[in-house]
């Protein structure tokens, strides 16, 4: 444990989000402490981006929050006015999207896009905003003079750096990275993550890092939460998860990444495919794919197929939602 007293920055409780009649997020609990990197991993459609959008308060119809709360420094965001939320976004929480490198306006110079964003949130002269933009580019490892560049003059990696610089412009307490590097090549991806880590050390913001790449999280995150079919099935400090993953889905994910060193062994992955959230499986949502769910063990099988497991803490900081794991 760190010597500095940790403080809860974001507390999500029992969050439920629906798209029309489909419940994409069903009862998610999550806390993010000041200055920590929380990794949220899961496959496409598991609801991880929906959780991020809810925290950022940018869910658009037909998506709407039907239950639960999201507290930022103790204050519930659900039910706040549009104007209050406008101030909260970017100032308190900013977000870097998956295809963020395509989010820049192609006919505006990079610097002018900083100016627009900053002046929407604070009284600052155009000149000062441009100077600040240059400083921010410098921070993310780019040449200050690039404020005069148009997006097409920059590579994908540099555009992603611009977006990260914008996300830091108002000194937010939390930066959400939603698959920030999946569209980038491995070398560029590594450089950008190194940059984020260094910036986080200097500025002390917290990071919610969303990705399908568990191996990246094991390396960069302090804590990791694993989502499956709209629920969190396991959460633990990154080091504990690496050593002692308990949920069969987490174990399966770990078995899905071939290693680059050591013996070349056949991996099994996870049979089947993630469920349709329109009609999620009864009981444990992972049971149709779970290697430990077999009719031979009748009593356990009944529980697995009819009773939804709850997320329970089984050691400090390590929670699992699985009938196989007893508290």
């Amino acid at each position, binding site marked *: 444990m760190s010597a500095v007293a940790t403080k809860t920055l974001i507390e999500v409780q029992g969050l439920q989000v629906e798209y029309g009649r489909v419940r994409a997020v069903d009862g998610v609990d999550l806390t993010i402490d000041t200055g920590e990197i929380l990794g949220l991993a899961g496959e496409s459609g598991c609801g991880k981006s929906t959780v991020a959008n809810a925290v950022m308060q940018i869910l658009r119809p037909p998506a709407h929050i039907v239950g639960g709360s999201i507290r930022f420094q103790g204050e519930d965001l659900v039910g706040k006015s549009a104007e209050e939320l406008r101030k909260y976004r970017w100032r308190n929480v900013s977000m870097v999207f998956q295809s963020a490198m395509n989010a820049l306006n192609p006919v505006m110079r990079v610097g002018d896009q900083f100016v627009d964003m900053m002046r929407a949130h604070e009284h600052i002269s155009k000149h000062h905003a441009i100077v600040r933009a240059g400083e921010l580019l410098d921070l993310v490892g780019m040449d200050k003079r690039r404020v005069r560049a148009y997006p097409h003059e920059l590579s994908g990696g540099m555009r992603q750096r611009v977006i990260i610089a914008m996300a830091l412009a108002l000194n937010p307490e939390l930066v959400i990275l939603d698959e920030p590097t999946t569209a980038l090549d491995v070398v560029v991806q590594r*450089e950008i993550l190194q940059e984020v880590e260094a910036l986080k050390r200097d500025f002390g913001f917290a990071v919610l890092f969303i990705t399908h790449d568990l191996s990246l999280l094991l390396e960069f995150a302090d804590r990791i939460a694993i989502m499956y079919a709209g629920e969190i099935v396991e959460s633990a400090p990154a080091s504990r998860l690496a050593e002692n993953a308990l949920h069969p889905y987490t174990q399966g994910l770990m078995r899905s990444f071939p290693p680059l060193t050591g013996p070349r062994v056949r991996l099994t992955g996870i049979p089947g495919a993630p469920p349709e959230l329109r009609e999620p499986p009864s009981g444990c949502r992972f049971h149709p794919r779970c290697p430990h769910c077999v009719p031979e063990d009748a009593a356990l099988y009944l529980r697995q197929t009819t009773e939804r497991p709850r997320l329970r803490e089984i050691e400090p900081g390590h929670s699992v939602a699985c009938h196989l794991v007893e508290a």
Partner: protein
Amino acid sequence: MSALEVRDLSKNFAVGGALRRSQVHAVDDVSFSLQPGTITALVGESGSGKSTVARLLARLYDPTSGSVLFDGGDVARVRRRKDVLRYRSQVQLIFQDPFGSLNPVKTVRHHIERPLRIHRVVPPAQVEGRVHELLSTVGLVPPEEVAAKYPHELSGGQRQRVSIARALAVEPKVVLADEPTSMLDVSIRIGILNLMLKLKDEHDIAFLYVTHDLASARYIADDILVMYAGQIVERGPVEQVLADPLHPYTRLLLAAVHGERIDERRGSASAAVDPAEGCRFVSRCPLAVPVCSVMTPPLVEARPGQSARCHVTAPAT
């Protein structure tokens, strides 16, 4: 006997207007061969030219120069429709996007039947049976049920299996798989890779596996080709190359996925525009010496079976 052999293959694309015309060297002097019953991985970053190689082999592009030898003939020069058709039936391409490569208003049966009929693989009376056989081979069971489904009723992994079954329908000697798993969920990627391993053994197919993922290349491939800016910069047995790479670019890629700290001069793996003589990696290379900027290094076999384009680690003798 190689299933397919590529010799000095190059593909340039013209860019710019009439006055400032430039040539992008997307694929530059690439040679390799594919053996039956082996998987060759072609790895590189976006823009390195790896997909262009696959498309040249599938005859979706005509090469600027060089040859593709298949069955004793140069298929890069084949023009007659009958010959093109025959070649296409022997060399099949599997695409990255299992969502875009199937017709949404046609059943799975239709997709597999079509190549069987067009290429007259089996007599019409046996088509139905063969469709079911192919679906079982790729793990889509029960085949009678799956055959009647439409693409939207299948998951991404199942759709990619349909694409593979369709490719297998014509009993190809060569399968070109262009990032076949990159759009699939992580938990089902391994299943597709395992299927390719099974097929190479059981059907003696020569696979070209195009990917940017070194770990999956190591998992299924026998040999590896590393591409940078249109050229093959290193080749050899996959285990040997990844355990002890010769080329500084292969080393950089490995460091990035191993989670080592990277401090480097930035550059890009993209195709070179009107390249000058010299090594294309020189601006990023920690080992660069003066000769690197003036002379393009040849691909030199510096260790048994392992070659690299590098004046420093694989000098020409």
